[in-house]
């Protein structure tokens, strides 16, 4: 988790935002925009779509802030739920089929050689494409736990699941992902 969140005393900022403090909400956006975008981008692949959905997540969060309860779930968990629902709504309305050729926007390590960068990018594309073939729960768990780096407890709260269910989903997701990518190599 980003250190800036700890420095932010997030609960206090969230309370201010709930009271209508727009600058407080903007600070929350500054902290969480990157992780929300990453969560969405892995799932929709297209850059502009991911940006649009990310914007909509924060607009919806602002509109529904009065309904957020600090003690019920961490603010990031609440944002991820909004993001998850926004992605679901997007697929329902757009019926988007993301082609394998769609390249995710990736900031690579600048010290990598060009050929390594290309190989790494292809591998990331395959990985992201394979993720879309998992069940939604499996995909969410892998993204939150292993990409975003959240704990089992945090993932469970974000997805409204029991911690045991999240652990099982994690294992099944990794098993499925491994088989999916093996089959693509054949």
């Amino acid at each position, binding site marked *: 988790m980003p250190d800036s969140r700890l420095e932010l005393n997030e609960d206090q900022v969230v309370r201010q935002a709930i009271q209508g403090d727009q600058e407080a*909400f903007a600070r929350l956006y500054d902290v969480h925009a990157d992780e929300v975008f990453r969560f969405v981008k892995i799932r929709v692949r297209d850059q502009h779509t991911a940006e649009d959905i990310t914007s909509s997540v924060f607009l919806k969060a602002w509109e529904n802030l009065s309904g957020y309860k600090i003690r019920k779930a961490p603010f990031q968990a609440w944002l991820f739920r909004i993001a998850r629902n926004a992605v679901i709504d997007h697929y329902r309305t757009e019926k988007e089929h993301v082609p394998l050729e769609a390249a995710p*926007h990736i900031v690579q390590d600048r010290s990598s050689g060009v050929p390594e960068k290309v190989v790494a990018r292809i591998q990331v594309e395959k990985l992201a494409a394979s993720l879309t073939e998992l069940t939604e729960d499996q995909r969410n768990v892998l993204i939150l736990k292993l990409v975003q780096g959240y704990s089992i407890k945090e993932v469970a709260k974000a997805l409204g699941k029991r911690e045991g269910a999240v652990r099982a989903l994690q294992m099944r997701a990794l098993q499925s992902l491994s088989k999916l990518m093996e089959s693509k190599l054949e």
Partner: protein
Amino acid sequence: MSELQKALEECLVLLETGRATIEECLARFPEYAGELEPLLLKAQELKTLHGIHISEVFKANTRNELLNYMGDHPTRAKNQRGHSGLSLKLASGLAILLLAFAASGTALAQRALPGDSLYAWKLASENLWLLINPDDFETALWLSTRRFEELLAVRGNAVLEPISVEAYLDSIQRVTEAADAESLSRASEVIGVQWEALQKAGFRFEDLEDFPGPLAEPDMQEGQRPDPEDTPKAGSTATEASKIPNTPVVGDLEVTVQPNLTLESLP
């Protein structure tokens, strides 16, 4: 949690904290090395997706748009400042009406099914009960019965059934977690009856693919493992023959199901 799952969890923590390499993890759990290795490799690969970042230009532009939007659409909390007297009287009157409505509405809501307008109310009343009831196990068992009844009621509904399957699985997970040594046998009995009824209703249990613990594959042979192509996606219902063994295990409980179960063999 199965032993493989425990090993996976421990290895992921070790890798995450840099306290071990994949090879060291495999050496730590040699009996699971074959199964663990591909999972740990995939977990490491997934970290590369952390390199996806929002464009700074987009982030800055969106921040400005967000501030403009917030200026045009302030929150309700800010809007209601300065109307305390009238608002208090209105709020009191509304509260009385709402309480009366809630009492009758809650009673009606108890029979609501997923998709019904009162279903959210039903869930809200259950959450309240969860908060105030000290007996976690009995509450979990009561909830699993509710989810089981809902699942039977929405069988065949392509939209509601998968949602209900997931809710039911979560509920029996809660039962196994809340059960202690004394209540295990009761949990086993109750859930066993539910499972028999679900099988009779035609559930084939690929739906239980994501169920925690050894439920789906405690002693499965390699050839019996479901293929990724068979993995049901959100919104789908499984229709193929079950690949689970005849003695499904619910967490640490063993539920006995008659082998070769057919409609004719059911009481």
